[in-house]
């Protein structure tokens, strides 16, 4: 717990200082995307890592949040500080509805039915032209008025700090959830459903809590995305975003709090770095994913946690041996 808390605080501090050290707008833009993905990955991790069910429908909440913010902004002229929380609220409601239906299933059935939801939403977004403007998407989502007056670099920095704030709130909620009884109950459900039930934990309720929290956070991230990129399209519901989220969480280490953050940073940077390789970019990325699965199956943070645990065990063993044999050996 201390390790995670310290790690989070250090990352937070570093993130605060980045725009002061870096003035290249492209790099700050990358920073904004890293923070955005960090929030998405953390929200996804709540479902996958702490409930233990693999959801392929998480982009549903991202998309719902983004479209909500976009529609409220372009049609009703609401400002960003209104639309983003509302986006989170609508996603929360969607999370309640979708969770009520899908969390009754487990295993591969859960995987496919969540996928069915996000694909269905994608098709609806693509065809319900009256609401979502169909494949043309919703363009011209405006940034806050005070940002619009800034020059490029400062505008991006402003967005960076807004996203950092959202990320901080996200990680705080995740932290409080994980280290609360609700969080521990969710982990118990993940590890052994029957045992959890036998001590009076209702798996469905635990799963719903994590699921809805994850949905709300993803919706908030989507709302921010709408204002930052200023264009929202049905591709937000698509598999590309989902695959990125999955890869980030699994590379960083699911079931840990630092994992998704590290994963978001690593994968975003890697994807941009691989642009240099031009045509080989995606192929190399796919190979990277395969290698991670084969050699670092618990992700980076999972690996680090395992190392620390084994080092602790080694230390304990040594201490035990010393006391047993009455001296250094």
């Amino acid at each position: 717990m201390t390790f995670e808390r310290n790690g989070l605080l250090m990352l937070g501090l570093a993130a605060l200082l980045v725009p002061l050290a870096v003035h290249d707008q492209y790099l700050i833009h990358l920073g904004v995307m890293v923070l955005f993905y960090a929030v998405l990955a953390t929200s996804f991790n709540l479902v996958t890592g702490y409930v233990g069910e693999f959801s392929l429908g998480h982009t549903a909440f991202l998309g719902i949040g983004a479209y909500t913010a976009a529609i409220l902004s372009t049609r009703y002229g609401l400002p960003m500080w209104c639309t983003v929380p509302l986006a989170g609220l609508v996603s929360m409601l969607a999370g309640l509805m979708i969770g009520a239906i899908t969390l009754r299933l487990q295993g591969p059935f859960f995987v496919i039915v969540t996928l069915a939801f996000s694909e269905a939403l994608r098709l609806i977004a693509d065809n319900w032209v009256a609401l979502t403007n169909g494949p043309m998407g919703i363009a011209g989502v405006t940034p806050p008025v005070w940002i619009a007056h800034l020059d490029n670099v400062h505008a991006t920095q402003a967005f960076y700090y807004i996203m950092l704030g959202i990320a901080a709130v996200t990680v705080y909620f995740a932290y409080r959830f994980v280290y609360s009884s609700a969080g521990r109950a969710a982990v118990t459900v993940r590890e052994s459903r029957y045992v959890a039930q036998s001590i009076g934990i209702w798996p469905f309720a635990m799963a719903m809590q994590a699921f809805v929290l994850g949905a709300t956070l993803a919706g908030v991230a989507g709302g921010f995305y709408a204002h930052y990129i200023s264009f929202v399209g049905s591709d937000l519901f698509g598999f590309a975003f989902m695959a990125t989220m999955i890869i980030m969480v699994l590379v960083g280490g699911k079931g840990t709090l630092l994992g998704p953050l590290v994963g978001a940073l690593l994968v975003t940077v890697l994807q941009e770095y691989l642009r240099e390789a031009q045509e080989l970019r995606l192929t190399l990325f796919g190979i990277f994913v395969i290698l991670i699965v084969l050699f670092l199956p618990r992700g980076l943070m999972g690996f680090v946690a395992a190392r620390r645990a084994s080092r602790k065990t080694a230390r304990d063993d040594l201490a035990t041996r010393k006391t047993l044999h009455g001296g250094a050996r």
Partner: protein
Amino acid sequence: MDLLLQFLVNGVVIGVFYALSALGLTLIFGLMRVVNFAHGDFYMLGGVLGWFVTERLGLDFFSGLAIVAVVMAAFGWVIDRVLIERVRDQGEEAGILLTIGLSIVIANVALLAVGTAPLKVASPVSEAPLLLGPVVLTRGRVVALVIAALLVVASHLLIRRTTLGRAMRATFQDPMAARLAGIRTERVYASTFALGTTLAALSGMLLGSIYSAQVSIGGTVSLKAFVVVILGGMGSFPGAIAGGLLLGVVEALWGGYISTNLVDLVGFLLVIVLLLFRPYGLFSLRAERA
């Protein structure tokens, strides 16, 4: 009435093709509990290899089919032994992530190798229309349909009548018991994966001769195959066929009478509704417990 007949026939034709491409997936899904996201890309490889063998090497369709079957079976075997074997005991997420990575690699290597153009697989017969009463088909479709049906029957015979098939069924029922009975389960897994890969690839080649083969098609095919597998029940052979036919016919009727825009939505709605009321599919052989 004529219209309805044509829609039904359209639906059945498509349904058989859906069933064939989902058959491999249901075996892999049901037996090995691997959610294979690269399934659509194996289908695509079948189409691309089919193009290569018939257009570039100039072989006739049926020799081409045989060669593609052998090559893809070997490919599937190797993938299982080298990659999937390593993550088999780590739960299903490892398999998901691995096959996602595999799908990305296969799709992009194919893109580099053959480019973006749609590829034509030479059909064994002409594309002239065939009129059966009020219903229109083409010779190419009928031939592909017949071959698909033969492949389904052949797979069924393989699973029901051969030793390998019996070993597969035993491992599906209880892997530990199968191992205790002396069955080499690693070989069974590899054979199952190879069989699934081959079926996907052959359906890709067959359909490539009717439409065209394209590198980017992997994702769409995977999704449709997942829908069929869930509809029919994981691991259920007749379920995959029934699920495929059901999906094909429902899509055709919806597209014909309601709207062609949202045809793909039908499958996903079916899945959601079905999983609400019959979570294990229409024909599932065993009920899942927590």
